[in-house]
């Protein structure tokens, strides 16, 4: 049971970075960033290529920079080029498929079995103090804590407040002398940096990247985000961030347990889609119920 729990925790913490990215773009900025899948793979591909070329530490930074670039283009398309925000994400996703294969040198699979990554580096260190096997937990935990803390502080700065206001009331942002184009661009750059970091860490922890590593990530992350918000219903930013990380972990835990009970692995995406549908349409259906009940009553008479 304990190794199962540990795996769920590691994977949950790594994917919590993408969930935190969506917390920023979806919950705060009110933009549904559908480029998440492509950006996740981009981070994984860039991270892998740089690590394979012999720079394990640089690979993490390179992945995040690639994420920023991807986020910038997505934001630019929707704020300056007149492309609808959902469509901008879909287009970016499609474009990134080619870009990602290009980055991986024309192949759709890269192996890092003999590559120095930040995980192998830490594993070497930990073996000295008898903690081998905990490197994934340490790295994913540290990354989640840093990103969560950064997000907490960031959302309290002036630019952070402006980003929140942009998602909350764009009219008010314009009349308080903030350019909503700028806040959207900054918000998506930061969120995509997290998504790419998440992809980079997942690839390095499982020692391989394939072109499908990010597919469906946006739904999985949304499911985690919505699970988190049902567990922690506070309006305070700090608690909501904690809830977000918690949601990612709970999602992975449930998934891991379901696998134990012989749910086939390919069901992951169906399950996450159903969770997202329930979480989004649940409140809607609930609000429609009185009307529905009245109609039913009328029919009976």
């Amino acid at each position, binding site marked *: 049971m304990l190794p199962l729990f540990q795996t769920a925790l590691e994977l949950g913490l790594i994917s919590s970075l993408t969930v935190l990215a969506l917390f920023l773009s979806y919950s705060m900025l009110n933009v549904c960033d559908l480029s998440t899948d492509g950006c996740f793979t981009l981070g994984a591909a860039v991270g892998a290529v740089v690590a394979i070329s012999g720079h394990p530490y640089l690979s993490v930074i390179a992945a995040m920079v690639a994420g920023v670039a991807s986020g910038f283009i997505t934001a630019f398309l929707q704020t300056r080029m007149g492309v609808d925000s959902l469509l901008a994400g879909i287009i970016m996703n499609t474009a990134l498929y080619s870009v990602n294969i290009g980055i991986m040198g024309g192949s759709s699979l890269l192996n890092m079995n003999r590559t120095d990554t930040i995980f192998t580096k830490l594993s070497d260190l930990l073996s000295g103090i008898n903690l081998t096997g905990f490197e994934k937990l340490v790295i994913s935990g540290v990354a989640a804590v840093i990103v969560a803390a950064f997000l907490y502080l960031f959302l309290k700065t002036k630019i952070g407040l402006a980003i929140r206001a942009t998602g909350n009331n764009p009219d008010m*942002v314009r009349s308080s002398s903030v350019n909503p184009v700028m806040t959207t661009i900054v918000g998506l750059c930061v969120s995509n940096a997290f998504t790419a970091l998440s992809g980079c860490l997942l690839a390095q922890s499982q020692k391989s990247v394939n072109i499908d590593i990010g597919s469906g990530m946006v739904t999985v992350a949304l499911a985690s985000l919505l699970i988190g918000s049902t567990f922690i219903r506070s309006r305070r930013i700090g608690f909501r961030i904690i809830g977000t990380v918690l949601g990612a972990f709970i999602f992975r835990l449930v998934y891991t347990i379901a696998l134990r009970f012989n749910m086939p692995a390919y069901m992951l995406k169906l399950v996450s889609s159903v969770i997202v549908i329930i979480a989004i349409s649940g409140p809607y259906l609930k609000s429609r119920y009185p009307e529905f009940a009245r109609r039913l009553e009328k029919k009976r008479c």
Partner: protein
Amino acid sequence: MLIINDISKTFNPGTVNEKTALSHLSLTVNDGDFISIIGSNGAGKSTLFNAIAGSFMTDEGRIVLDGVDITMTPEHVRARSIGRLFQDPQKGTAPDMSIEENLALAAGSGGWLSRLSRRERSDLRERVAVLGMGLEDRMSSPVGLLSGGQRQALALLMATINPPKLLLLDEHTAALDPATSEKVGELTDKIVATNRLTCLMITHNLTSALQQGNRTLMMEGGRIILDISGSKRDGMVVDDLLEMFKTEAGHKLDNDRILLAR
């Protein structure tokens, strides 16, 4: 000083829905003016405000504020010197953010990465206390929980927290109940007087159009058809105003809210 020189705006040009909202309108607003604006439905009052605030660019003409030509300046840049309030109290504030966060954004002191210091916090608290609504004790509660009147008072404070060169009030008390409306009106007078703000106010209340401020404009068909101030305005009553409108516009004042309010 605001100088509007011969501005025009046509919406949907060349289509069946073509509408000339502003037609060769010119206006000079002197520093310290408090101008009330009245007019029929669709006379172009809100469009004039949109043109001044930069919600759209005018088709022709020039707008100069304090010697700076702002004709083509984007809305968010103009917002640094122009404060604005809408009829809808929801428009001026972000509901999911706290009172303090809303104000911090409006105050906009410090760099992009700066956070509120302890001193700024107590400053903001003092400013909110001036509203006399007890909001200073609820600084961290979300604005969405406030009443319409409280939200509008807060929006007023946000629009004037850095005294703007020009304050635009677009029927900002019309959506409130009478008592709250009066309270927000009083607050407006107080804030305008203490900061000696230059102010344009659209209203449907003809009485307050004559009583508040020092100058009254009437609009019709995208133009200003009446501009009264000084001794001519002092002795006027509402019926004089309606009569003058009829003479100038060639028909009766046609604004359902004004007629209902009488």
